[in-house]
């Protein structure tokens, strides 16, 4: 794993950074590709098959969780990734190479899971021994056997505590160094004191041994920690995939007319570039020769491609849908629009980072209280004239009883139950504290394209296009990457017609497609291209067969089928709804009316959206932002919480707390309802945990808590808290039904 991830430090000219290993089967290299729209098992198979069918590829393994595919190629094979990316594009996937500096991060939860496994093993076995000891209490168990069992427990517990407790000790030490107290301080103190004291008691053959409590405490706490970490690392890898959007190699034309491929990072403003069909624009640039249609959905969120001609600006990250074009670089690396939007997003996200999680707020009150209680117990017993040993035992009992086991489980257990419940409905919660922030929302801000609407053009259902024309148009369209072409192919399939690709289709950049079917020249493309005159201001493709009158295909971006109903429900539940869009005002007004949204704004730039959200927040509202385009990313990061459909660009998904799948908007209601229920459950869990403490702490302070009582109290509170969380996963929520 680590070996395949270690990449060459420098990119050789025109080559990709990759690991070269000389094995029995000859030298091979492993290349990591990010596949943007790989969403299910079927996609995974298609990706692997497409890559394996290439010459020189010996293995390909897709990873659905990270959205990447590892490709092993013979080192003799071509040195570039273009054939791989091209093959994936033909199979319908947008792929890009992962930049070498991004590939060194390992999923961080592996280490924690190892510790969790060890703690689980130890907890189970020590508990077995302890149960035997308790069962033998007052019975016929000889003291020697009891001591032996204690020694066995110690043998398992001490290394386990040292290994499994490390994350807590490290975190507590870091907090103390900064003169602060976090939840890990009482945890570490409790575990270390309990283990140390138990060890001392074992050497003296005493009955008061707490190994089981200490280890199972660690086990429960690690569960919470692993769940937390898992959510975090998912978010991190999504952010890393984003780096792949900036293509690593670029074709530049030198002064002497020679063209060569150089790493994108060495491109400087003023260089002449050639951007091939289907390639991403590597830096911000100005078009110098040729016309093209650009897929700018990454920047604007609009699916309608933009026609560009000489002198127009091209943005980094957009895709050239037509033939090759020449351009001159205007801004590179840190100065590109993509980098600018990332920066906006990061700044906006910092504000969200200041959110204090429920558990941390509880810890702030709880940790000092625990320490004071423990210390006063110790001092109290000393003051009453007992020995330090007895005083320390009582103090440890207090620490163990109060150890925030249930508290540390209270929130993660609820979150996992809530997240699991949402996952069944196709909703993925990405941010660990996302649900907590969602529960506080009172205002919902929606984006239009891709959020209220489906975000992909559809052949207008009303359009009277006969099946024959559609089949022929689809025969041409299926060779093109243009969204309208794809819509035609989709419409054709939806009508149950077979799509047979036409042979020798010619693509004319910025114009359309041309082919000869049965001796008749057919064209599919712009109005000019097909000789049609009256182009209305409405997205359309024209179709012309021979000398017949051109025929128009009109497209629209349909609303999600339940958009209006969902908005109505949200309003009834008391949420304030607003629509912010970058689209033309007239279009936005129509959508707003159809959905029953009174507050709407159109023609907004990414910065405007951000300002509107900041203004709402300043007015005391808790804002949920729902959007999908890159233009929404800063707004998504700025909202108190954010949600994006799974069709959203990766950067928007990175900025979002929650991602929902499917063609419906209903997940929005479900998410909010579950978030609220989760908050209620978390609070009641705190109640339960504190209730246990109120019951047992006085007993512990009085010194009448035996290890048996301590273990029972701790386990029951943990189990009650977990059961309460599990119940959340099953109970019916009236708002959601």
């Amino acid at each position: 794993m680590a070996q395949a991830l270690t990449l060459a430090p420098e990119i050789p000219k025109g080559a990709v950074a990759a690991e070269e290993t000389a094995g029995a089967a000859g030298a091979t290299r492993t290349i990591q590709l990010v596949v943007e729209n790989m969403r299910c098992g079927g996609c995974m198979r298609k990706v692997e098959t497409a890559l394996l069918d290439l010459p020189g590829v010996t293995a390909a393994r897709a990873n659905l969780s990270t959205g990447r595919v590892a490709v092993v190629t013979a080192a003799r094979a071509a040195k570039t990734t273009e054939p791989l990316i091209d093959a994936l594009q033909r199979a319908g996937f947008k792929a890009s190479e992962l930049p070498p500096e991004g590939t060194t991060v390992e999923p961080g939860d592996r280490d924690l899971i190892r510790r969790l496994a060890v703690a689980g093993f130890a907890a189970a076995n020590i508990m077995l021994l302890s149960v035997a000891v308790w069962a033998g209490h007052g019975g016929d168990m000889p003291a020697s056997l009891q001591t032996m069992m204690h020694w066995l427990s110690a043998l398992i517990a001490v290394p386990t505590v040292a290994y499994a407790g490390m994350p807590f000790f490290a975190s507590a030490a870091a907090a103390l160094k900064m003169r602060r107290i976090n939840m890990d301080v009482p945890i570490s103190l409790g575990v270390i004191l309990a283990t140390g004291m138990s060890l001392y008691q074992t050497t003296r053959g005493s009955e008061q041994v707490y190994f089981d409590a200490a280890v199972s405490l660690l086990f429960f706490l690690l569960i919470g920690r692993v769940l937390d970490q898992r959510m975090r690392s998912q978010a991190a890898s999504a952010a890393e995939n984003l780096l792949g959007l900036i293509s690593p190699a670029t074709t530049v034309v030198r002064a002497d007319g020679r063209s060569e491929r150089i790493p994108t990072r060495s491109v400087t403003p003023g260089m002449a570039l050639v951007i091939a069909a289907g390639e991403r624009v590597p830096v911000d640039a100005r078009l110098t020769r040729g016309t093209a249609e650009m897929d700018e959905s990454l920047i604007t969120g609009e699916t309608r491609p933009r026609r560009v001609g000489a002198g127009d600006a091209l943005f980094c990250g957009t895709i050239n849908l037509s033939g090759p074009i020449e351009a001159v670089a205007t801004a590179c690396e840190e100065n590109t629009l993509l980098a600018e939007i990332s920066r906006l997003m990061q700044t906006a996200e910092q504000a969200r980072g200041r959110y204090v999680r429920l558990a941390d707020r509880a810890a702030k009150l709880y940790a000092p209280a625990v320490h004071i209680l423990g210390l006063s117990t110790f001092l109290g017993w000393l003051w009453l004239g007992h020995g330090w040993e007895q005083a320390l035992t009582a103090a440890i009992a207090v620490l163990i009883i109060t150890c925030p086991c249930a508290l540390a489980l209270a929130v993660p257990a609820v979150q996992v139950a809530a997240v699991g419940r949402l996952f069944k409905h196709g909703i993925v919660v990405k941010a660990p504290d996302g649900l907590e922030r969602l529960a506080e929302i009172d205002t919902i801000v929606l984006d239009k394209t891709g959020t209220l609407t489906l975000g992909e053009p559809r052949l207008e259902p009303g359009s009277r296009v006969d099946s024959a024309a559609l089949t022929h148009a689809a025969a041409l369209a299926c060779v093109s990457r243009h969204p309208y072409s794809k819509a035609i192919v989709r419409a054709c399939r939806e009508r149950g017609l077979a799509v047979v690709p036409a042979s020798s289709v010619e693509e004319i950049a910025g114009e359309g497609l041309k082919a000869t079917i049965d001796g008749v020249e057919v064209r599919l493309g712009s109005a000019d291209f097909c000789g049609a005159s009256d182009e209305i201001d409405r997205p359309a493709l024209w179709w012309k067969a021979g000398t017949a009158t051109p025929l128009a295909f009109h497209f629209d971006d349909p609303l999600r089928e339940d958009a209006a109903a969902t908005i109505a429900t949200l309003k009834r539940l008391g949420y304030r709804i607003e629509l912010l869009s970058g689209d033309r005002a007239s279009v936005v007004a129509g959508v707003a009316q159809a959905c029953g949204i009174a507050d709407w704004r159109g023609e907004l730039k990414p910065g405007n959206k951000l300002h509107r959200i900041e203004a709402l927040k300043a007015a005391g509202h808790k804002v949920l932002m729902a959007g999908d385009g890159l233009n929404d990313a800063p707004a998504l990061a700025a909202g108190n919480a954010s949600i994006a459909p799974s069709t959203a660009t990766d950067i928007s998904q990175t900025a979002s707390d929650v991602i929902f799948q499917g063609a419906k908007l209903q997940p929005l209601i479900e998410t909010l309802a579950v978030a609220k229920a989760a908050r209620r459950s978390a609070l009641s869990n705190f109640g339960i945990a504190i209730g246990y403490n109120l019951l047992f702490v006085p007993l512990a302070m009085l010194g009448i808590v035996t290890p048996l009582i301590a273990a029972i109290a701790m386990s029951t509170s943990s189990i009650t808290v977990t059961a309460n969380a599990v119940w959340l996963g099953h109970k019916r929520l009236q708002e959601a039904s």
Partner: protein
Amino acid sequence: MTALAWLIPAALGLGALGLVGFLWSLKSGQFDDLEGAGWRALDDEPIGPSRAVKHEAAPAALP
């Protein structure tokens, strides 16, 4: 009571075996793609000639 002399080590040994098995499966990357693994189980597509030959060459653990 003498039964304990081998029962306890046996119990611990079996537990340790499970632990080692889990750590091994973790290390060999079987938990790397939980989402994908679920889908792979459903992949009943007949393995094509190109896939069949090449899959044998696939290393066990890829990131």
